[in-house]
């Protein structure tokens, strides 16, 4: 792959879904076909960018040739490429699933334009190289996500997603305030330029606090998670999958970029510990609520709260760990957990949607028969569930192993107790569902009943278990670490 081709792919990953969205709006009758075609092209472009970064290393392009500060710059580095690759695979799987889930029903013409819009803003967010473009994509992402979430039109869905929309706006405004502070203080928005001008001080610190607070709200970090469970649980299944696996992850990606990149010199151990504490609370509280949830999708939504918590547990460790292989491992483990959760949660929600469709509801206590009639779907839930618990082999297991190892090495033992408690609770809520699948209902007729809907769920779950759990080595290469871990 050449540099030029990789640059074109970066542009294509954003333009293709936008174009698809426009076409699907213009020709609602053909929305499904057009949407699926755009999805294929986008996923190939997104995957291509990841492959390009893997082969060639980080790259940066300035489309139009205007150059910073006038034009727009796009950048793909190891971290963004990793998330971009995951997001595009998950989005592709979700699209295939959606062709079956929505079919040609009256919701389909509304779904496809909004969905491609969301995808475009997501890709744009991962590829944006300056703080303002990040704001724009973040805002677009929030808007399209809330609109998609309300697609069922039920009263709960509309109420939950209206709240989601307002919370999202509040979050992005707070983030924008931080950006404004940065611009007044340092006179630049491009991250590469900013990182050279960045100096610790009250201004940078307050900007970081504002931006982090806004993003934490969008990433649903405890105690700012209150909006997430109703919004994610009431959305249509493919939308829930994208919201939980990708949209929340986008806000988290920004926090990570700011804390470990741009503001690395501003961050203090105390601040990182605060994030870690909130993460710990999220792990315990989210898992506990997931265990108490009576509906499958609500359970999955609370599990997202907990899983986001795990990601924040890494911050105090990253700050305490001296640079070197140990810190590299922690960073990769963090990305690995984010990716693993992305695949697993998407697979889980897609499978949960199928169960809901077949059973007519998603009350956990009543899904025994359905789970037993749909072996492939139940397997998807089982695989995704074990990745969420962090059972081996899965990306979640490797992530937790390295997380705990980092906690031992930096002598922060208390995080191990959090991980252990979270794992126990997660096992309890996952097996509360799976236990339903071993009842006295009749034997299933065949393994797969609805390939187009069941296979994406199964494959996404399988990636989180088989690929990330047994061959996570390439992630070290992608993120640019040599990985002689020792």
């Amino acid at each position, binding site marked *: 792959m050449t540099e030029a081709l990789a640059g074109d792919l970066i542009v294509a990953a954003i333009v293709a879904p936008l174009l698809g969205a426009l076409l699907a709006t213009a020709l609602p009758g053909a929305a499904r076909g057009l949407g699926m075609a755009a999805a294929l092209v986008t996923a190939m472009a997104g995957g291509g960018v990841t492959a390009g970064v893997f082969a060639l290393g980080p790259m940066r392009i300035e489309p139009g040739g205007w150059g910073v500060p006038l034009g727009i710059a796009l950048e793909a580095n190891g971290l963004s490429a990793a998330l971009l690759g995951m997001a595009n695979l998950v989005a592709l799987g979700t699209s295939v699933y959606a062709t079956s889930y929505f079919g040609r029903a009256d919701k389909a013409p509304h779904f496809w334009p909004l969905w491609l819009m969301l995808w475009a803003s997501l890709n744009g967010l991962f590829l944006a190289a300056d703080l303002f473009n990040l704001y724009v994509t973040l805002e677009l992402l929030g808007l399209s996500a809330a609109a998609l979430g309300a697609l069922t039109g039920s009263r709960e869905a509309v109420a939950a997603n209206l709240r989601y929309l307002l919370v999202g706006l509040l979050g992005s405004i707070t983030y924008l305030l931080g950006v404004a502070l940065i611009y007044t203080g340092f006179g630049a928005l491009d991250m590469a330029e900013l990182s050279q001008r960045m100096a610790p001080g009250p201004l940078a610190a307050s900007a970081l606090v504002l931006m982090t607070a806004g993003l934490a709200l969008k990433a649903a970090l405890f105690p700012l998670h209150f909006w997430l469970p109703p919004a994610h649980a009431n959305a249509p299944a493919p939308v829930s999958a994208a919201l939980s696996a990708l949209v929340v992850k986008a806000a988290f990606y920004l926090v990570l970029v700011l804390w470990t990149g741009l503001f690395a010199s501003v961050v203090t151990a105390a601040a990182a510990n605060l994030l870690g504490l909130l993460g710990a609370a999220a792990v315990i509280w989210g898992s506990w609520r997931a265990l108490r949830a009576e509906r499958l999708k609500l359970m999955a939504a609370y599990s997202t709260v907990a899983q986001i918590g795990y990601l924040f547990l890494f911050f105090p460790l990253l700050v305490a760990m001296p640079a070197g*292989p140990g810190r590299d*491992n922690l960073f*990769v483990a963090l990305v690995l957990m984010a990716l693993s959760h992305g695949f697993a949660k998407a697979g889980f929600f897609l499978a949960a949607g199928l169960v809901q469709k077949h059973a007519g509801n998603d009350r956990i206590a009543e899904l025994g028969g359905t789970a037993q009639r749909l*072996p492939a779907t139940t*397997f998807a839930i089982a695989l995704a569930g*074990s990745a969420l618990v962090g*059972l*081996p*082999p899965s990306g979640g*297991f*490797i992530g937790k*192993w*390295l997380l*705990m*190892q980092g906690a*031992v*090495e930096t002598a922060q033992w208390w995080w*191990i107790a959090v991980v*252990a408690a979270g*794992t*126990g609770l997660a*096992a309890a809520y996952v*097996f509360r569902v799976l*236990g339903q699948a*071993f*009842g*006295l*209902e*009749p*034997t*299933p*007729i*065949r*393994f797969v009943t609805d390939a187009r809907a069941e296979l994406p769920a199964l494959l996404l779950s399988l990636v989180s278990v088989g690929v990330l*759990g*047994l*061959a*996570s*080595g390439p*992630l*070290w290469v992608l993120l640019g*670490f040599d*990985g*002689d*871990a*020792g």
Partner: protein
Amino acid sequence: MGAPGLSTLLPGAIVLSSLLPGVLIFLVKEESHVLRGVLNMFGAILKLILVGVLIWGVWLGQGFETRITIAPGLDLVLNADALSVLFVTLSTVLWLITTIYAIGYLEHSPNRSRFFGFFSLCVSATVGIALAGNLLTFVIFYEILTLATYPLVAHRGTPDATRGGRIYLAYTMSGGIVLLIGAVWLRALTGPVDFVEGGVLAGMPASAHGQLVAIFALLMLGLGVKAALVPLHGWLPQSMVAPAPVSSLLHAVAVVKAGAFGIVRVVYDVYGVEFAAQLGLLAMLGALASFTIVYGSVMALTQDGLKKRLAYSTVSQVSYIALGTSILGPVATIGGMVHLVHQGIMKITLFFCAGNYAETLGVHRVSQMDGVGRRMPWTTLAFSVGALGMIGIPPIAGFVSKWYLGLGGVEAEQYWVLVVLAASTLLNAGYFLPILYRAWFRPPPPKWPKEHVFPGRFETMGALLWPPVITALLCLVAGILAAAPFSPLEWATLIAQREYGL
């Protein structure tokens, strides 16, 4: 052993030889008995052949290692040393026999594709545990075993089965988390923990000894759940709701044995038995094992349910392995190691027989067993061999184990071992002999609780009858020919020699 690459592929192939058929079995339609049977037997026989090659190679001193790098510094290692060969062979042979038994046992019952799929995964995980070459690999397969066994325990789908499955999962999952913490801690302290004959930790500085003791406690806690060390044994009697082939596998090969095997691995190949003794860890383990031996036997005395009695007997008998491990000296080591095999073949015989009584006569309780010997002579003969072996009557395999354990205790001048053995033997006799008396000497009742007459000239279906008869024969052969080459005893001696560097 000509072909290049065999030494790096064989351990992986042994795991895959049951894993891949298992995955395919899930996809098999419920009514395709023949295809499912072919897949099952193909995997079981292929594995047996591969293990045969492995035994020969290890006997000649050749090394086998499959290594997959999951991530930098985290390797999945499958490695064959003498100890892993012992466990691999046991599980492969008994898997073949149990598969035949299970095909007969589950004829006409629902969800067989699911059952045999998980059954194969369960054995793959066990073989993975046996071949694990480092602590990470061991933990991975140990957890997979938990997951693969749960659906088998809960298979019946009755409220009882669901409850048993939940209890099983609660215990083993908690144990798994504790084991994981111990493994991560050790990894952070020393780097990758490979299993090496003679141990790897003896060179650690004295300042780390406190941490090593704490890690040992965590590891034993995690392994003790599956090995059913008191007070972590609560799940075992509850999981008796599982179908008979599962109970057989659980008790003889897979779960309980995996815990015991893990204890052996940690003591010999991680800490090193001499270093463990020096840290005072063996005394701790020995006390726990002795208490478990006596407690399990006492509890077995009070059970009327046949499978429950056998379950408590397992609690007691598996701890012989831990007991042998906890005594410093090659003779005790031989006793513990050989019991790994002997307990397996004896206990699987007993569980097969219990399954036959239940399936053919509807007999589930000891108090219903009057005169079963007349109705089912072959099954009862096999049961008698297993039971007498458990008590330790020569020339059955169990005698060899107890002999070496006792001798090992004397050699190490730890005479309390003899007291434990004597007490346990008396108790064993106390709960097994009344069963034999009832079965052979009491008159049968006019009507069995739920009799099921199978066509053919035998007392029950062939697929149910031959497995216990064969394993009972194995118990006799292992006892009578204990000194023959490739007998379990000879192999245990080989292990002890390599562990102590003799």
